[in-house]
């Protein structure tokens, strides 16, 4: 296990690279993968062989985690694929500005004001309504490969 320890300590300086190579055969359904430069979530993996006595290849069907577009890729299963670093961070919602930006409270006490409200209708209404009702809301922001988006919402009780 010695090389393991060495391994994670060297990576301890966070976020050096945006993706990480991983053998195609080890990527499972629900994992992440980069297809055509986009970070995706795998929704289907099937394997087949190139000819009866050839090598295995993986057929991935995946969905872009930001745009929800469906993408597909076929990779020999012994080759490496890029796996994106997908991060999710929780922030408390402080304010919604009129031009569609939100203001979030970071862990360190500062604010983060560069995120737009989500385009998704139902999440949008939930955030707006919840905020209008004066609830204490925590939003989860998903980030990968330099993009960010609000992806979930949690109600942690009424504002005191």
């Amino acid at each position, binding site marked *: *296990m*010695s*090389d*393991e320890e060495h*391994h*994670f300590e060297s*990576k*301890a*300086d*966070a976020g050096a690279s945006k*993706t*990480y190579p*991983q*053998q*195609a*055969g*080890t990527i*499972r359904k*629900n994992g*992440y993968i980069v297809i055509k430069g986009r970070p995706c*979530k795998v*929704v289907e993996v099937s*394997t*087949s*062989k*190139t*000819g*009866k*006595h*050839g*090598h*295995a290849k*993986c057929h991935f069907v995946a*969905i872009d*985690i*930001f*745009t*929800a577009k*469906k993408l597909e890729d076929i990779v*020999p*299963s012994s*080759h490496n694929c890029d*796996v*994106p*670093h*997908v991060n*999710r961070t929780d922030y408390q919602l402080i304010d919604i500005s009129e031009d569609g930006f939100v203001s979030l409270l970071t862990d360190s006490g500062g604010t983060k004001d560069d995120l737009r409200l*989500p*385009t*998704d209708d*139902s*999440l949008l209404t*939930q955030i707006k309504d919840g905020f209008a009702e004066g609830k204490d809301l925590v939003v*989860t922001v998903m980030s990968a490969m330099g993009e960010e988006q609000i*992806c*979930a*919402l*949690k*109600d*942690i009780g009424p504002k005191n």
Partner: protein
Amino acid sequence: MRRLPGGGADLPQLQSTMLAIEQACSSIQMHANPTEAEKIIVSLHDSPMPYQLCQFILENSHMPIARFLAAAAIRVAALREWGLLTDEDKRNLIVFFLGFVMERASASDTYVQSKVSAVAAQLIKRGWQDFTEGDKAAIFLEVKRASEGIYGVDAQFAGMDFLESLVSEFSPSTATSMGLPREFHELCQSSFEKNYLKEFYVWGQNAAVSFGDKIVGSAATTMSEIKVCSAALRLMCQILNWSFKQAASVSGPSSSKTHAFSSGIRHDTLLLKKFERSLVEPGPAWHDVLISSGHTIWILNLYEALRQKYSSDNLLWIDSPLAVSARQLIVQLCSLSGSIFPSDNGQMQIKHLTQILSAIIKWIEPADLILEAITNEHRDSEVLDACHALLSIATLTDCMLFDNLLRSVRPFGTLRVLSTLTCEVVKAYTASADEDDRWSSEALDILLEAWGVVLGRSDFTKTSISTEAVADTANLFNVIVESYLNAAARTALDDDNQSEHFHASISRRDEMLRSYSLIARAAADVTVPFLVGLFSERVSLLLSQKSTNDAISLLEELYWLLLITGHVLTDSGEGETILVPEALQASFSNIPEEAQHPVVVLSCFARHSLDPETRACYFSPRLMEAVIWFLARWADTYVMPLDGTKGHICTPHESQASKRVLHSFAGENDQGKLVLDTIIRISMVALSSYPGENELQTMTCHHLLVALVRRRNVCAHLVTLESWAGIANAFVNERTLFQLNARVQRYLAQALVSAAFGLKDSEASNQYVRNLLGPMTTYLKDISIQNNLKGFAQQADVIYTVICLMERLRGAMRATQPRTQKATFEMGHAVMDSLLTLLEVYKNQSAVVYQILKFVVDLVDAQVTFLNAEDTSILVSFCLQLLKVYSSHNIGKISLSLSSSLQSEAQFEKYKDLRALLQLLVHLCSKDLVDFSSGSDEVDSPEIANVVFIGLHIITPLISLDLLKYPKLSFDYFALLSHMLEVYPEKVAQLNKDAFAHIAHTLDFGLHCQDIDVVDRCLRAVDALVSYHFKSRVKGEEGLGAYAIDSQGTNGELQESILKRFLRILLQLLLFEDFRMELVGSMADALLPLLLCEHDSYQRMVHELLERQSNPDTKIRLADALQRLTSTNQLTSSLERSNRQRFRKNLQIFLTDISGYMRTK
């Protein structure tokens, strides 16, 4: 014509209604405004007493579909209002229908005719208990006259048709349920069988005989005469399909066993199920009709004569209804058995079978010409029927008798015929690449089943088959192998995706190969050396080739040879102890050298894969998969085999020679260790030299290694081998094995830990496990205490490593055995805190969360029954903490996404998490049922029931109604809930108000579920809860206490007590909703204690219910039925078993009573 009930309407009114119905029918057919039209038709079904109207439509409408609907409406209405009709009305209805069918027998709209027939049959059955014998006789007299042809040919056909629907209606497997209990159907069946079945058969036979003679004899026969003849044959067939009850009870099993061995006739057979056939056992009463009257000869001659007559236009004729039904009758007669034959040592039955066999032999001889004709002209039905007949005969006879049956008419035995036919069918099957042309596959299935029956019996030995037959089977096997090799070579270059047409699915392929292996083993002395020859020929060809490209067809041939060889040499076992097949032990007695023993020779091919160069050139992943599969089965059978003759002194017998050779090749000696070592090195090659080949690696870890660690004596040698230590070392220290798919790593860990079994004492075993797992737990602990964990934890590589480690620990946990339990629990204990940290850090990485939860599920499952009080409380408090952490992350969380499929994926992940948590609680429950821990005297052991209730309380809010739509989740949830309520009702009373309300609410939801299992569980839970309350009240205790009393709700309104609420729900369910009869038992059990506890409220509810009924007739009948529900059958106010039984009966009667007029939503 007698008047049917439901009058009141005059002629113009009837006519206008008929017009409306006809219009509705035509608009439905033209798809114009279908909802409106449907409404009109439904209203016809629902209207009270529509008989006269329907009669009017049947007699006067010009539209067949309107007549069809009228008949259907009468059926629905009569079954609904049966209780309201007088006996006179019922008889009139039936007489009307029968008259209608006979009179209009020549009408062209046959579907209306058969509908009316079927309705008449259903009504007769519905009233079977009400009518007197005289009534029935009068009805059937008409039918008899018709069947004799008194009313003309068309009516005769109608009579046959009616009898056929009657028989199928009375046969329980084809009956319509009519909402009546099973007892009713059984009573009808046995009375019908006793009094009428044989008579009807004779009627059919008479008709068939008279017309059969006529058709054969004269040149000019009308279509309708042929129609009657085939209808009569169909009726006879239908009757022989009956599952005879009376005969089965007459002939005890003992009487048949006595001459089972002497004559070769078998009675112990339940087979034929696969092709939906069963034995025909009508009993001695049928002897005169079926046997002594020469019935069999007659039908065989009839078919033969017809065959001759129509030989010119054979093609059309062979699939005509007459031919089909005649052949079906013949096939059905093949499976005639039981006490219908006199006890003459089977002579009569043998004669019977010989007769049939010598007739059907003409259908399949000469096999090659006939099959060629089929391929050209698609007339396969006769051959398929012949196959079915052969299978039936094989089922009823033993191998020797089966072979000899034909010798009276042919110079060779039946097995010769069977093998010739199979040869041709196999050729046709392997040659056809066409998916649609599947007659050969069907025929092959039947024939292989017949071979299985002949050769696969447990009492089959070499002596039960003649040398001539052995030669035939050997020849058959050669043809099979060659045909398959040709097919393999032909399809080798096909693309992987499409080429699977050859084997529709793996399990079907394995089943076929198993049948082939039976054939091979019957002639092992010839077939196994034949395989050896083919094998060595191809291996030497392969090794002499220079490039892989030319070799692909060779590879495919070898692939197939490995599969068939694996099947011939070994059995699949499936849970049984696997032994070397008898046939192989007994053969090859003349080969003393192990190096030349065919089994050894065949097994040595795998060794070539160890040479890197050969491997790179020739061992494709697919071939390697076959090698691994073969080795797994081979190792199970031949490596260090358990000596079946333990305790006996092995006498050097000639037939034992082969066994001795095999023992010395891979027994528990140095040679055996060498073999084992080779196998391990091959598996290491499969794991390390084929990156990304998941299937191959799964097969290696999940089959081959599992097979190696299955037996203790093998494990004992495994753990001493260097190669094994090599795998273990690679597993712990090397990165290559981290490249495997995470699931494969779990299997690998499981196999490695399982081998601890072979170490000599428990201390050594635990140390072995510690060495394997120590580094991983250390790694997990280290990572979780890193200060900057949050910083790097989300990197994909770290996530992947954590997932792999969790999978490995899971595998290890699953392999826990009593002797390694200590070490695995230490491992689990060591990572507990780390897991909580990781759960926190990875709360947004569903894959990691799921792995952690699954690990804990396996941890609890493997450990909980072994732990002492102290460790149990450690485990339990860990579980509760885990639940709390999980809940705090997920409660009230709404995740949304642009993509609906990602959204449903997220939902699905949630479902899997929750299901894992429920499993966790279920496993915890088992602590109370099974407890192996030693020190049970300590007092501070936590109460499992409390813990589980707290757990339920934590996770129930997470289970939304949406999630309960996943059937498995809702099943698990309600199973756990009802288990808890049944086992610990007293704890429920102590729950706080919220928790209790939640449980009550959930039960309420479950009772309205569609899933019958869930409703059943909920009913049982209600029963448990209320019975507990009732019993403790009788004892003067509190029972459910405050929950059983009406209370003031938060909003000031009076809230019903829980008991009243359940009572109301159950009554609602019974009376107004679509209640299913299967649930009567549990419903009665839940209702009875409720009635006892809340008698006054019940009376009040019943009163309200009756007040609401507008129809005075219904009101009286309902009141009456409710009265009888609670007061008949000496019902007492106790919850004893007998009383519950009585109440079940009452409820059943009650439901049958009200089925007609209640339950309208």
